[in-house]
């Protein structure tokens, strides 16, 4: 088991290392194969571990890392059912995306750099997934942040991309600081850095400490998962290559925040106040991001906002105490969102880097395969029954609604509104981009749409999983087995059955299913090809304002610009012009001027002629020796 886990973790690292060191001297095919093989090897190991582990849990030390006094940070792996599922998902999605990338990056000359960072990303993500020691986990946490930064700015020759990368890095750092503090506090209070020991000792924490720790952890997760105050980096992160967005900014890294809270759920669960805050932030983020997605034109930005919104459902599940629901949604989201992103990548490449959905159209006939894949992804995202997204999202809504505290009823309502808007924005994107629209300019429609077939059919496994994700955890009230829920029952916070009573569950699932379908039909009438307001500017000022509000993400960027960045820049400017240049520099300038004044007479002596210098040297030497001799003679 130790060997399997070791290889599971270090295959991608070795792949990335080889590519970093000698990748440039390898033939292109070989480099691509190394990248894919290392991740596929990891997938194989994850499956082996899944099979071998059975019902058991493993706490294995791979090797010591840091040992100073009481502090020991060893590379320890804690393999429980949560980690098993997560590792399988991460390696599976990464494998597909690596294979897809081979096609996607076929014309890019920087493929070595790309695959090297992708491999390192998978390694760091697996560290987060498996690590038991929090310092080791933090290594992965920062590792994914770094890879995300470098891959967002992958096409760095365009300044906007590099800026987007920096923005993501700095904003996630705000969260990471809190996580770092939380780690230090764990060590101070519990003398423990191991997740396993922390979870078993969590009960000894006082309520106030637990709230503080839970909120610090949540704040760290908020940064990584782009939740409400720190939303703004994710839409800009779409500057990176599309497979990167699919892997890092949809399927894996942004869900790492939610995963961290699930890993440390016993600490979170101690504080009901923290749980309420988590659930409230999540519910509002979900609504907020869904509304913002409704106003976007860029297909990738729609998906980015939708990711924020979907991740917030995972947090809502955690806030409602339903880790199983959160994990279930994490899984189904990973599948359908990766599918949507990869489909969007196909569309964007086929249309020669066109991101605007209003300039797409008629893709049903031109890219029929992508059309079907995208449809599967869309219905799953919109939570249309019986697809995976429906049951996972509904389970979360249900456990929120069924929570004994009254405030959760209100949060469930907000989340439900968010879910309805999800249907709207998903099918707005789908109908506008894929159905035929007569108003579209002719020249664009005639363009050659050629993409490699491989890029399309590699999505098929994701589509199949998106369709059948429901069967992973088909609710028992409808005669299902709830396999995932039973599998996850052994982890802390895992509830095998949804907390609500069977009649409530049945009526609510049917109700929200029907509601989603109704909204889907409404969306068709709103955004169908013949809808009159599509494709021409609207005259009504109010509507324009509204669109502007939504498409800018409620001016959150501008708010941060005005409230934080501008004052900071003004302060830096004062420090620079007034303090640094005004006081420090001027002072030195004045000192230098005094010396210059006194030395202006000596300046005449420096003729630059060697002979003069030598004469002066001899003269000076003679003078000194004479003075010494005289002094010796008289003072003896």
């Amino acid at each position: 088991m130790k060997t399997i886990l070791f290889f599971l973790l270090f295959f991608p690292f070795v792949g990335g290392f080889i590519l970093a060191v000698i990748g440039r001297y390898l033939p292109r095919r070989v480099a691509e194969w190394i990248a894919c093989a290392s991740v596929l090897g990891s997938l194989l190991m994850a499956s082996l571990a899944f099979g071998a582990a059975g019902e058991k849990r493993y706490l294995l030390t791979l090797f010591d890392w840091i040992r100073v006094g009481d502090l020991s940070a060893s590379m320890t792996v804690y393999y429980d059912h949560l980690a098993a599922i997560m590792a399988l998902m991460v390696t599976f999605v990464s494998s597909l995306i690596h294979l897809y990338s081979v096609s996607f990056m076929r014309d890019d000359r920087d493929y070595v750099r790309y695959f090297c960072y992708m491999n390192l990303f998978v390694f760091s993500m697996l560290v987060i997934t498996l690590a038991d020691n929090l310092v080791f986990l933090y290594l992965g946490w920062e590792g994914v942040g770094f890879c995300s930064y470098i891959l967002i700015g992958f096409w760095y020759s365009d300044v906007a991309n590099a800026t987007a990368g920096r923005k993501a890095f700095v904003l996630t750092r705000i969260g990471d600081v809190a996580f770092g503090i939380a780690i230090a506090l764990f060590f101070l209070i519990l003398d423990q850095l191991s997740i396993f020991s922390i979870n078993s000792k969590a009960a000894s924490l006082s309520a106030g400490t637990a709230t503080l720790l839970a909120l610090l952890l949540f704040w760290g997760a908020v940064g990584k998962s782009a939740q409400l105050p720190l939303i703004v980096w994710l839409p800009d992160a779409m500057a990176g290559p599309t497979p990167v967005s699919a892997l890092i900014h949809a399927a894996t890294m942004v869900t790492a925040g939610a995963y961290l809270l699930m890993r440390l759920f016993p600490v979170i669960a101690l504080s009901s106040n923290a749980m309420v805050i988590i659930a409230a932030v999540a519910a509002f983020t979900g609504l907020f991001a869904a509304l913002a997605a409704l106003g976007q034109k860029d297909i990738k930005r729609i998906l980015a906002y939708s990711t924020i919104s979907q991740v917030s459902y995972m947090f809502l599940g955690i806030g409602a105490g339903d880790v199983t629901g959160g994990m279930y949604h994490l899984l189904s989201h990973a599948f359908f969102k990766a599918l949507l992103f990869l489909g969007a990548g196909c569309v964007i490449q086929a249309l020669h880097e066109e991101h605007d959905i209003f300039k797409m159209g008629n893709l049903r006939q031109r890219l029929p395969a992508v059309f079907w894949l995208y449809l599967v992804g869309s219905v799953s995202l919109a939570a249309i029954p019986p697809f995976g997204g429906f049951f996972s999202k509904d389970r979360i809504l249900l456990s929120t609604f069924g929570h004994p505290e009254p405030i959760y009823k209100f949060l469930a309502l907000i989340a439900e509104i968010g879910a309805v808007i999800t249907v709207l924005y998903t099918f707005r994107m789908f109908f506008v981009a894929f159905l035929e629209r007569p108003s579209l300019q002719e020249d664009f429609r005639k363009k050659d749409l050629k993409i490699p077939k491989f890029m399309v059919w590699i999505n098929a496994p994701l589509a199949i999983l998106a369709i059948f994700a429901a069967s992973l955890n088909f609710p028992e009230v409808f005669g299902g087995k709830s396999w995932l829920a039973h599998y996850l029952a052994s982890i802390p916070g895992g509830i095998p059955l949804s907390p609500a009573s069977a009649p409530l569950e049945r009526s609510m699932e049917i109700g929200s299913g029907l509601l989603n379908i109704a909204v889907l039909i409404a969306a068709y009438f709103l955004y169908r090809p013949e809808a009159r307001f599509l494709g021409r500017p609207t005259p009504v000022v109010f509507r324009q304002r509204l669109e502007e509000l939504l498409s800018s993400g409620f001016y959150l960027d501008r708010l941060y610009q005005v409230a934080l960045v501008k004052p900071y820049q003004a302060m830096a400017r004062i420090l620079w012009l007034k303090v640094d240049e005004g006081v420090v520099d001027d002072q030195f300038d004045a000192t230098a001027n005094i010396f210059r004044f006194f030395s202006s007479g000596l300046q005449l002596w420096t003729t630059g002629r060697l002979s003069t210098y030598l004469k002066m040297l001899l003269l000076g030497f003679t003078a000194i020796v004479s003075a010494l001799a005289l002094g010796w003679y008289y003072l003896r």
Partner: protein
Amino acid sequence: MIVPYGNVLLLAIILFLLGAVCSISRRNLLMILIGVEIMLNAAGLAFVAASLKWRLLDGQAFVLFIFAVAASEVAVGLALIVYSQRRTGSLNADQYNQMKG
């Protein structure tokens, strides 16, 4: 000591002055270097004489150091001269006036 101490010192002084005048009055870098060498050896001579006069070996040890310094100085100095010759095509010391303040 057969030769009187004063005579040796006189010779050393004459040699030193010759070297000093040589290095000051000549413009050729090579000659300046030779002047410096002569001065060093004059100092060495004075040391040897003093060492014999006072019956102390320190002075002779110092001469060995002076030889070593002189040898390395010549090595570095000649290398610099060759380099300067290549760079400017001349050995005239007054040509090197880029350092004028």
